[in-house]
């Protein structure tokens, strides 16, 4: 095409361009504003709404008063949560164990009544929801920690022994984990040793325990086959 046309076109387009530039400067403020709105909205979504959606709650089949039992039974936690002869840990007591004392209602609370009627009488196991159940791939040895390392239950389980009511059981809708594993704090931050029970938390403690936990060729930590099955 001819150079003349070129010039003409360029001129026209320049014009248009400047026009648009003018508009731009006015729009600048808006643009920033919209950016902030989008930013804020997504932050709220991610930090506030998302956790609410992610976790769901269940109530324990009946209210359990740890404090009272510790006081009544004595022997501290071992009174009910003991080691079997093969070194395995009994965990949440089976009905038979409760029945030893609760053949007849003890005290007149409502929960006591339901417990005796619904479970003891019908010989149905109580479907307790375990706050600190690790996934199936984890092998956790209570004897290694409690007998071997002489650790206190509180380190991992917190002060549940002092609780008078059973708090609701929260679980992750996607993974089915108890919320105690990841911790209440959605950011996964922890203040106490029992706030979180993910692999890194075990690892941290093991690392602090020093040289004996360096059997892994790959990581110089504990080999996988210590806590995994």
């Amino acid at each position, binding site marked *: *095409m001819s150079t003349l046309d070129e010039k003409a076109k360029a001129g026209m387009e320049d014009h*248009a*361009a400047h026009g648009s*530039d003018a508009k731009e400067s006015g729009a600048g403020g808006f643009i920033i504003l919209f950016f902030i709105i989008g930013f804020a909205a997504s932050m709220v979504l991610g930090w506030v709404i998302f956790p609410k959606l992610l976790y769901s709650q269940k109530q324990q089949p009946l209210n359990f008063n740890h404090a009272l039992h510790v006081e009544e039974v004595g022997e501290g936690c071992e009174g009910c949560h003991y080691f079997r002869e093969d070194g395995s840990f009994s965990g949440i007591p089976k009905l038979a164990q409760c029945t030893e004392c609760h053949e007849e209602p003890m005290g007149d609370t409502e929960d006591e009544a339901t417990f005796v009627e619904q479970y003891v009488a019908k010989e149905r196991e109580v479907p307790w929801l375990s706050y600190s159940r690790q996934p199936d791939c984890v092998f956790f040895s209570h004897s290694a920690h409690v007998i071997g390392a002489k650790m206190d239950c509180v380190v991992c389980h917190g002060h549940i022994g002092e609780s008078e009511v059973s708090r609701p059981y929260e679980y992750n809708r996607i993974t089915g984990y108890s919320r105690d594993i990841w911790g209440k704090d959605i950011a996964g931050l922890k203040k106490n040793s029992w706030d979180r029970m993910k692999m890194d938390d075990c690892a941290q403690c093991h690392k602090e325990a020093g040289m004996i936990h360096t059997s892994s060729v*790959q990581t110089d930590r504990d080999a996988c086959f210590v806590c995994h099955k």
Partner: protein
Amino acid sequence: MDSALIPKGVKRCPMWQFLLGLGIVGAVLAWGVYAMLLCWFKGLNQTNMNDYYGFALWIWADLAVIALGGGAFFSGLLKYIIGKDELKNIINYAVLIGFICYSSALLILAIDIGQPLRGWFIFWHANVHSMLTEVAFCLSAYFAVLTIEYIPLILENRQLDKVPFFHNLSHNMHETMAVFAATGAFLSFFHQGSLGGVAGVLFGRPFAFREGLLIWPWTFFLFTWSAAAYGPSFTLLITWITEKVARKKLVKDNVVELLAKISGWMIFTYTIAKICDTTRWANITAPGLGQNLADFYTGNAFYGYWILFAEIILGGVVPAIILISAPLRKNPTWRVTAFFLGVMGVSLNRWVMVLQVMAVPIMPFDTWALYYPSWQEVATTILPVAYGIILIMISYRYLPIFPQEAELNPIEEETAMAVEAHTESTPDLKPANA
């Protein structure tokens, strides 16, 4: 209707033709996608892989496309670092092809792993002793580089370029491209090599195992070298095919011949190295482990000495000679034959380093394991090809891929005028999505 988006001064096929083409290739793509979904939702039982064939067609495809995509980093290296400026006329296409190859590789990997949702473990829980870890990191990082190299190309679309921000962005990216190219070369060197290492480190498998330098087996260097050598050949082959399809010349011969020559010398040197490696392996490495060539190339229905010949002679020596000798190189037929043989050779090499490795029995009482892919595997392997063609079609139509195209194919006045008029009649222009 989309002429406003078509680069200035070039002619493109009518919309209906373009859409028809898209439709046909799209159908193939859809087939591949269906197979991909089957693999994701039903699991890898959809494939013919088995416990003897943990790696099969897919991993071969990965290694192959990455080797062929090597043209991108190598021509980038030549242009931006070595300063072979003529290559600017083909670098765009090299980048596009590289981009397609690498995105395909990543997609295939995502299908190949048994637990795609955990794929990120390879980064998060990285084991630095594993060649595959190195592959994953460098591959992803280099893909980022390729994307960076591809973006300015997109921004040069006639309409996008009108947006000042985009214009400046692409401008600046061009300015700093050398840095990216250098990084890309660095990354490529390692992941191409690691892909070679993947087989080379298998000290339990005498067929694959190679000694080497420090932690890197010889295959590490051979793979890098071969990618650099054959990559450009592939770029040129695709260019040639594109020219045939577009029925016009897109890149000047001097450029093609330059790259072809370089490729030729690279292939030549690589082949020498490969021959040395094979000789050492056949006479020292394998016998040291109690095996000799006959154990690897006889006693089964498929893998014979022919594969050695096909890979090294047909796919190595022959194309090398053709591309080195000026008269043969300048003859298009010979040249393209060389490209083709080269591509065949490097693909065959990758095949051997994946599938034959799996096929050879190691325990004396074990048996050869032969395998043929299931249709799902084939479909998912063709999927990226279809995707590549589509991306090329779109890019070629709307982006100034070939700087020399306009000059090589001047268009007559009236058509040009028509295009102009058309453009001006549409003042408010939408971006490329039109």
